[in-house]
């Protein structure tokens, strides 16, 4: 058992650190949840791609570096420590791309992955519907067969990035739900600017029009844009949400960097006599380390052929609770009057952290999964 990287991984780290030091914008980009910010973040993705850093874990033929899990986690450490911009392409790179590697055809990978890596095509998710949230399998938006493809009808909602994105991926019903709602679902991708798509942005709690409702009325999807077998969409999508909850959505580097900023804030602004706040800062330091170490153990198991399954639900509950607690501590360090000012970095982070226990599968659903699959408790009514 060890916690040291071999020299070649440290060399990779040094290369990433050097590139980031020379290329990360000195001033923060405008928020990616605005039209102006979205465009600026696209340009950053193109710059990342030019340096070979936009999708380090992909094979070289698609614009990646073929980095293994250890290197990818090291890259993320450096990325967040450098204060680099949020990833506008995250939905595509973190969710759709793993699905394409597992279930897509070579043609689909060649067609979809390089523009994703360059930031030319930014992807939105189309999972939830007004009547299908935690009970996702009860979804009703449908794809009807036509001569050479499918026609989409129905409504999707809480579609992250959709206000400004180019394309979307999601699940649609192609067979009857009957009493087996997980069957008859198909995973497909579609163009957000195609005829029949109406994108209506929704203002979030942070005041940004960052996600959207999608109204779909006869949107044509060619056969080549179906991922995997029609009717197998649930299984295909779950393999992606597994990685979403697991290692790819929230790499530890993000929280290590946040904990370090909190520690710096406490050392500069904290009252040494306030041991209650000191204790919460200590908890934030320990929590980030715990998350990092938990991830290194998971990465070692995966490297030896293990899989992330229900363990990724532990991961999701942990980071989402952690992120909220960390930002609350930061706001308390700033003091009430400063904390209220919503344009502050910590206030923005706090507002975003409020959504963590909800998206990517609510923490209630995750706890059900933990209890049933890891502790062997019986299934019950939700």
């Amino acid at each position, binding site marked *: 058992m060890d916690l040291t990287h071999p020299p070649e991984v440290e060399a990779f780290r040094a290369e990433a650190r050097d590139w980031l030091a020379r290329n990360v914008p000195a001033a923060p980009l405008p928020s990616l949840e605005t039209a102006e910010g979205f465009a600026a973040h696209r340009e950053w993705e193109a710059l990342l791609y030019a340096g070979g850093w936009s999708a380090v874990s992909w094979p070289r033929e698609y614009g990646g570096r073929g980095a293994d899990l250890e290197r990818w986690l090291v890259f993320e450490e450096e990325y967040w420590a450098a204060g680099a911009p949020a990833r506008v392409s995250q939905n595509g790179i973190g969710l759709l791309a793993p699905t394409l590697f597992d279930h897509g055809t070579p043609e689909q990978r060649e067609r979809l992955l390089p523009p994703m890596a360059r930031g030319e095509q930014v992807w939105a998710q189309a999972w939830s519907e007004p009547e299908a949230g935690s009970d996702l399998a009860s979804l009703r938006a449908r794809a009807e067969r036509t001569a050479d493809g499918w026609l989409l009808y129905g409504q999707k909602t809480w579609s992250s990035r959709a206000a400004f994105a180019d394309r979307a991926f999601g699940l649609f019903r192609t067979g009857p739900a009957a009493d087996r709602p997980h069957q008859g679902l198909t995973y497909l991708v579609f163009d957000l600017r195609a005829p029949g798509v109406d994108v209506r942005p929704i203002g979030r709690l942070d005041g940004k029009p960052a996600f959207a409702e999608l109204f779909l009325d006869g949107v044509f999807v060619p056969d080549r844009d179906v991922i995997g077998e029609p009717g197998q969409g649930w299984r295909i999508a779950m393999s992606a949400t597994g990685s979403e909850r697991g290692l790819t959505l929230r790499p530890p580097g993000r929280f290590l960097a946040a904990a370090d900023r909190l520690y710096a804030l406490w050392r500069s602004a904290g009252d040494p006599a306030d041991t209650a706040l000191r204790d919460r800062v200590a908890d934030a330091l320990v929590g980030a380390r715990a998350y990092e170490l938990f991830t290194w153990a998971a990465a070692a198991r995966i490297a030896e052929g293990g899989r992330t399954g229900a363990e990724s639900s532990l991961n999701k509950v*942990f980071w989402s609770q952690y992120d909220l607690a960390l930002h609350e501590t930061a706001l308390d360090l700033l003091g009430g009057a400063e904390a209220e000012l919503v344009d502050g970095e910590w206030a923005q982070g706090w507002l975003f952290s409020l959504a963590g226990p909800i998206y990517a599968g609510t923490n209630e659903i995750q706890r059900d999964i933990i209890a049933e699959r890891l502790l062997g408790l019986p299934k019950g009514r939700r």
Partner: protein
Amino acid sequence: MRFLPTEEQTDFARAVRALLAAADVPAAVRAWAAGDFAPGRAVWKRLAAAGLFAPAAPEAYGGAGPLPVELAAAMVEVGRAGMPGPVVETAAAAVLLSRLEGGPGAEAAARFVPRLVAGGEAASLLLPGGGPYALDADAAEHCFTVDAAGRLRAYGGPRPVGVAAVLRSADPARRPARLAPGGGEVPAAGPAVLAAARTAGDWARLLTAAQCLGVGEALLERTARYARQRTQFGMPIGAFQAVKHRLADTLLALEFARPLVWAAALSLDAAEVAAAKLAAGGAAYGAALTALQVHGAIGYTEESDLSLWLRKARPLRDAWGTPAQCRAVVARSWPHARRGTAAP
């Protein structure tokens, strides 16, 4: 990088686990609480013969160490079994004395360490900054103390002299002893003793964290089993979300404490050890509260074996480092604050 226990590390812990599973530890715990140490010491002798304490001391004293990862992994099993006695204190005493090699305490080290490591003898231990009571001093052959001035005292005998009173712990199988001032012999004193005491204190804190992990795992395993079997309203209570989610949170806390314990064993850095103790102690005590609530009234009884772990969790959470002490160490000397500390 491979942050997982090796085959050998797992094998050692598995052997300790098998030995303890084959012994009737619950009966030994109850006897220990009643002042009959014989059944517990019989298990102890078998553990020592199997090499439980060997990772605490170097080969020169009959050990195989220092191997903190191996010892921590074994200590998880000690906690899981609910093993009574000053296991942590004996291991930490072996570390303390071993560190005096080559100095004025070398003679004491040569005299005592082999008896602790391979001889099946037990020791209680008091260190500067640690708790004021010597755990199970009336059940051990030895008691070692280091005071703030760095004076090492060794009390020995069939039962250590110097025990003024045995106090009652929330866990009846823990016997905190107040020592009479002075007495014993003073084999060594000075800065070298204080340095050795700091190291031994970190080991004691680490090993208690590992023990907490095992206690928490035992509580969770029993409670999950109970939730699968106990039926109310026509279904197992484990089918109810209120029960499920509490158990899920208990597992979460234990699973995120475990890698902290491993990392602390790898580095023995004071802040990492404090982090491990904070997380594992909190997770074990949380597991105890969950176990009690899910079991309901039967959990609040002495006759249920659950009580053997339930009452251990809170004293262990505080032993060799309360949460407040551990947080203070982390805030003072966190070694990982290296990324981006110049930002806002």
